[in-house]
């Protein structure tokens, strides 16, 4: 077949590696079953292959490196959901997909089927370097400076079964962006890498020590301009300091952010520079040839559009108000004339954020073939992107999405809620996240209301592990347990863009129903006090949270 657009093309070396890795996992499963490995020994190994034991069953998290996959891979995900699970999958905030009802016994076979389309579950969990995330508009966005996928793939390969960094104190998440506007939440990752062009090749700005969880932290800049050839050496050095000195006595203090806080960013930088000064740089040099070899595995789409593509698109918009509205919220400017990027919302009013049935997954694969060079991306907002759509065909695509029930016009709006699986699935949860997300999205379901409210992001986590990134939500909800009852704590003012900030707690936690009403009152208050053109965050920073606290806790 032709090289896939959008992601790295495997060759026989990559495929042999995957086959060996699956044999290794099958060996581990067999040793677990016969008792040679205890559960405590097996657990880190199954996690490194994305296999959790959750509330109801095993859960398998499949990697979608830098969020990009092709239609053939997408169809395989549908196939896995149909054959081994309950006919649906859940797209995660780390651009992966997880299946909730998997059997341990089936897992080697599932991994082999995934490998048949060059997919895997390697390092989607565990205390190792996790699947690398990137910009969902990589290679398409009008504002992009460097396509981050090439370096994301380089980091994926470098981190795969890394001999030194597979038994870290804790998980380690990397994100790579190549755009001046941060769409990857670089400052909320253990390491965030932002690429830009320099006079002699690509330069990398590196943030370290960001993260969510119990102790949220905004990453700090450790280096402003790392040269491409030093990228791997620099990351090795950052990880060496962490692996040697990160805390191992308390899992809540084991992330790199705690070490960066404890040492201070300047001391951390000094320690990294001391490593670099001793390193055998030749061993870690990322040469132009190596980069070119990876780049050559990415096929480029032919982005020619008819000269009247934009005119046709504008005419369609003028004729169809619903299409026009959807275009306003669910599209993103493309670098090529006559093209546009589309975000397909997986957040219907009252739905489960990020869930997709196998027929929707298949349907999206078909639409990718018809409209976007057979390529799809998963976003960290738990939506799906078709990155390269010709503008004159956008209206057709919109109608096809509508038939699949996937034309919700709410991307970036109040009902585009990010929620973790919560207590309905997760063994660590305090509260259910999904039902409250469903209630909120139903409450704000009216497209006209949402558009009037404007950009407002709600994030929900079922416990302090913060998988729903509530710290970074404009409105964040955190599930807490109060004497066996589910309560929610509200935070305001979080954001993950260039001005990354952690939301601040508004007041005492509320029971679920009161929380939904309180959020509705907060939104109403914003509508009544905002000045012309102000977003929710603008109003919040102008007036502080007092008016919103008053609204939230006002008793009817």
């Amino acid at each position, binding site marked *: 077949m032709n090289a896939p657009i959008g992601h790295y093309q495997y060759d026989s070396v990559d495929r042999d590696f995957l086959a060996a890795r699956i044999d290794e996992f099958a060996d581990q499963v067999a040793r677990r*079953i016969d008792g040679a490995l205890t559960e405590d020994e097996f657990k880190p190994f199954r996690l490194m292959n994305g296999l959790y*034991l959750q509330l109801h*069953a095993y859960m398998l998290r499949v990697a979608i490196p830098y969020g990009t996959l092709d239609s053939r891979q997408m169809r395989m995900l549908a196939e896995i959901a149909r054959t081994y699970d309950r006919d649906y999958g859940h797209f995660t905030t780390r651009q992966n997909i997880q299946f909730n009802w998997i*059997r341990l016994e089936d897992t080697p076979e599932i991994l082999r089927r995934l490998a048949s389309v060059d997919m895997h579950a390697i390092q989607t969990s565990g205390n190792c370097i996790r699947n690398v995330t990137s910009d969902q508009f990589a290679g398409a966005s009008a504002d992009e400076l460097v396509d981050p996928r090439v370096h994301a793939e380089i980091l994926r390969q470098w981190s795969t079964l890394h001999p030194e960094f597979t038994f870290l104190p804790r998980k380690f998440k990397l994100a790579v962006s190549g755009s001046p506007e941060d769409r990857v939440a670089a400052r909320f990752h253990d390491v965030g890498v932002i690429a830009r062009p320099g006079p002699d090749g690509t330069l990398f700005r590196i943030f370290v020590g960001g993260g969510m969880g119990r102790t949220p932290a905004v990453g700090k800049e450790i280096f402003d301009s790392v040269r491409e050839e030093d990228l791997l050496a620099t990351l090795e050095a950052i990880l060496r300091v962490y692996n040697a000195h990160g805390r191992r006595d308390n899992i809540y203090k084991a992330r790199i952010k705690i070490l960066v806080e404890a040492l201070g960013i300047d001391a951390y930088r000094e320690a990294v520079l001391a490593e670099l000064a001793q390193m055998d740089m030749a061993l870690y040099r990322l040469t132009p040839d190596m980069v070119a070899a990876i780049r050559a595995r990415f096929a480029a789409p032919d982005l020619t559009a008819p000269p009247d593509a934009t005119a046709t698109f504008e005419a369609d918009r003028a004729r169809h108000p619903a299409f026009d509205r959807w275009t306003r919220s669910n599209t993103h400017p493309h670098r090529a004339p006559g093209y546009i990027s589309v975000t397909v919302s997986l957040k219907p009013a009252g739905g489960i954020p990020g869930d997709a049935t196998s027929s929707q997954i298949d349907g999206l694969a078909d639409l990718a073939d018809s409209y976007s060079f057979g390529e799809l991306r998963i976003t960290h907002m738990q939506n799906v992107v078709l990155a390269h759509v010709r503008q004159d065909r956008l209206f057709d695509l919109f109608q096809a999405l509508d038939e699949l029930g996937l034309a919700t016009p709410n991307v970036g709006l109040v009902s585009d809620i990010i929620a973790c699986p919560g207590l*309905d699935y997760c063994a660590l949860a305090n509260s259910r996240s999904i039902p409250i997300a469903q209630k909120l999205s139903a409450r704000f379901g009216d497209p006209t209301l949402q558009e009037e409210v404007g950009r407002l992001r709600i994030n929900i986590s079922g416990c302090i592990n913060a998988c729903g990134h509530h710290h970074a939500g404009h409105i964040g909800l955190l599930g807490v347990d109060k004497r066996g009852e589910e309560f929610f704590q509200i935070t305001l003012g979080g954001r993950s863009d260039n001005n990354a900030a952690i939301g601040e707690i508004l007041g005492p936690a509320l029971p679920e129903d009161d929380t939904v009403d309180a959020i509705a009152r907060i939104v109403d208050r914003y509508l009544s006090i905002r000045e012309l053109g102000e977003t929710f965050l603008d109003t919040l920073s102008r007036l502080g949270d007092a008016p919103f606290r008053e609204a939230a806790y006002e008793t009817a």
Partner: protein
Amino acid sequence: MKRPTRLGEGQKLILTANRLLDGHIVWRDAAGQWRPSITHAAQLDTDTAQTALETLDAQKEGVVGVYEVAVHPGIPPSPVSVRERIRAFGPTVHPEFATELEP
């Protein structure tokens, strides 16, 4: 997992785990068998539950992560915490996946 569960008035303990091979939730009956439905779970006092926990062999019995759950006795018993009710009866957001309770 080691600390004994404190029981409220009239509550009992039942033992639960996940089956190693398929991960499914199971409950231990009076004969020491692991059953998929909570209906059959043996409803124990703190001492008997503790003894059972100490003497059973998870590896041999094909289960992982054995622990005790406080319940209001009855048929089926009703777990005290939301978490254990979700484990026993299925996710609240997918009524179609509710755990079938055998008679």
